């Protein structure tokens, strides 16, 4: 199967439902062959955005360009898109083969040629032997693979996935993620996927678009978005973060000094100095927890009370309380030598981390 991957550009895409704004001026460039994940909490406008890209709903404003040409007013059935739905949306009265051949029939492709392509598509998703079954006779994972074959057999210019694995259980979902990723890479098909599952987005996407209240919050590679969250929302939504609130208190060398309380000062490597108050995000895995040996003299360390240590196999999660009452979470990997560092709840411990782990984030 060969598809000509499409370049997609969204320009100020907007959708109003009455007074409510479902999607607000979404702009994005999608490279040919790229897999972009729209990630965000439920109701943030992911599905609406995807349906606008498919032109299943008409945008209230903005344009969609495919390979440079506006397709905003092209009816859906004249587009060449493969779409996967959370409910699989297989036609329940048609067999697997009839489902897959549907798109080819609509294109007026002769039965024999279409039959061969159906066979090829079903082999691609490893469902060769199930042609004559009804969707209801298949498991959830198999149904979604039929839906994938049905979407791919028409050799679409782009693939649109709306929480495609949301209805599967965890282990099946993970293996389907890998399968989907391999297939998408192999076919090199431009793909937009919607998910509220951060793991799915991190696993599958070339780039993640984090959305919030209909707006684009941050876009970047999984590592960029995870390592360098631009806003407090992204830092909290993607993975877990500790947040500190403080005031900028001059510079020390290359870094900005932020004073959070008498007990805690942070240094953040930043070129320009924002004045006034600052919000800093810190990943729990960056925090090292150890016994209090000496009084902490510098920034980026604090004596805290250990409230709870939760053993999680290869990780231990420490729940600490700062002197000012704020919580601090630390994830520490076990060494693997069988020794678990014992620390008793209620004891003071020293938490410290590197300056480079502090992230200045926008807080709005």
């Amino acid at each position, binding site marked *: 199967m060969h598809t000509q991957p499409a370049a997609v550009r969204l320009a100020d895409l907007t959708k109003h439902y009455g007074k409510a704004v479902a999607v607000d001026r979404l702009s994005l460039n999608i490279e040919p062959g790229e897999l972009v994940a729209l990630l965000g909490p439920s109701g943030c406008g992911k599905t609406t955005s995807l349906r606008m890209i498919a032109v299943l709903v008409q945008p209230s404003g903005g344009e969609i360009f495919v390979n440079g040409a506006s397709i905003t007013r092209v*009816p859906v*059935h004249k587009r060449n898109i493969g779409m996967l739905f*959370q409910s699989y949306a*297989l036609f*329940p009265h048609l067999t697997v083969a009839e489902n897959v051949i549907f798109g080819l029939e609509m294109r007026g492709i002769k039965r024999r040629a279409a039959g061969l392509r159906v066979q090829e598509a079903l082999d691609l998703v490893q469902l060769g032997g199930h042609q004559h079954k009804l969707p209801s006779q298949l498991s959830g994972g198999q149904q979604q693979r039929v839906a994938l074959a*049905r979407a791919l057999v*028409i050799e679409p210019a782009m693939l*649109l996935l709306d929480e495609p694995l949301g209805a599967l259980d965890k282990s099946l979902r993970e293996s389907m993620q890998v399968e989907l990723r391999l297939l998408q890479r192999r076919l090199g098909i431009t793909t937009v996927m919607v998910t509220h599952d951060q793991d799915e987005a991190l696993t599958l996407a070339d780039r993640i678009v984090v959305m919030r209240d209909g707006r684009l919050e941050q876009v970047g590679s999984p590592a960029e978005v995870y390592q360098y969250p631009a806003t407090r929302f992204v830092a909290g939504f993607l993975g877990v973060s500790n947040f500190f609130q403080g005031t900028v208190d001059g510079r020390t060398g290359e870094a900005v000094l932020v004073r959070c309380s008498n007990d805690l000062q942070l240094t953040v490597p930043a070129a320009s100095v924002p004045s006034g108050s600052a919000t800093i995000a810190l990943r729990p895995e960056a925090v090292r927890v150890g016994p209090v040996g000496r009084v902490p003299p510098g920034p980026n360390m604090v004596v805290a009370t250990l409230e709870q240590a939760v053993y999680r196999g290869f990780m231990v999660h420490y729940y600490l309380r700062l002197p000012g009452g704020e919580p601090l979470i630390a994830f520490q990997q076990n060494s693997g030598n069988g020794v678990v560092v014992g620390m008793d709840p209620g004891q003071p411990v020293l938490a410290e981390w590197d300056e480079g782990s502090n992230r200045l984030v926008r807080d709005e």
Partner: protein
Amino acid sequence: MQSVRSTTETMTVTATVFSPASSAVRATQGPPLLSRGQLAGILLLLPAAGFLLAFFLVPALTLFAYSVLTQRADGVVTLPLTVSHFQHFFGTSLYTHVLFSTLRMAAVTAAIAALLGYPVALVMVRSNAMVMRIMTIVVIAPLIVSVVVRTYGWELLLANTRTGVVNWVLLSLGIIHQPIRILYTETAVIIGSLHVFFPMMVLPLASALSKINPQLEDAARTLGAPSWRVFWRVSLPLSLPGLAVGFTLVFSLTASSYVTPAILGGTGAQMLGNLIEQQIAAVYDWPFGATVALVLVATVIGINLASTWFFERRNRL
């Protein structure tokens, strides 16, 4: 007296439509030991079952028994058993003609109701809750007015004279130059029946259409189907159960109607219901009236079973 009898006929036919309920009753009687729940279920069904038995089943069976009995000169219906009434019915071309035109009018009415009902039902399920409620009321509205009043209304509209509303309009517009004959034809009966029984088609269709996952239609569209093909390949086949119910209801109710053909059909478009009324109320031939009634009920049940079988088979494909 007459209207009472016509409602009994209607009940005969509608009872066949809701037959799943009666098989459910049979199923609960199966196990030898009844649980509390089953016992409560039977107790709850008893009043309705008793009512049906006393006021529907017994009179209906008595009437059907008449069809194989002989009426003496003094009017008493008694033995010996005979099939002569059936021979008379099927041997007389007038009667078989009425049978076939009854079935034809019922089938045409049901078919037109389906053709007109789909667009209405589609609009209904696509609309928001407010529009849906208003449309439901409008669709059901004809049921609120008495069938006799409604039918006389149609008589005024369809009258064959220059003063009939339809003829008057057509004449005024210069489309026709002589009044055309609508009243006392099958067309008039079909129009009147359509008006009465349209909701019986629209409501099951709307119910079936609303159960279709809207993502199926989206999927068909993304696969390249224009609207009419989405309907033909997805919405229509998936709403066949609703169509089956609607078709059964409209067909049965039209085939067994009495008032509409009596007023709008006259002698030009008689139906079996009118034949029954004549035999029993005018000729006092109870056994022959019973025979016609039995033929009506048996044919309608037969056709409904066949169409249900057809729709279910289509559905499984």
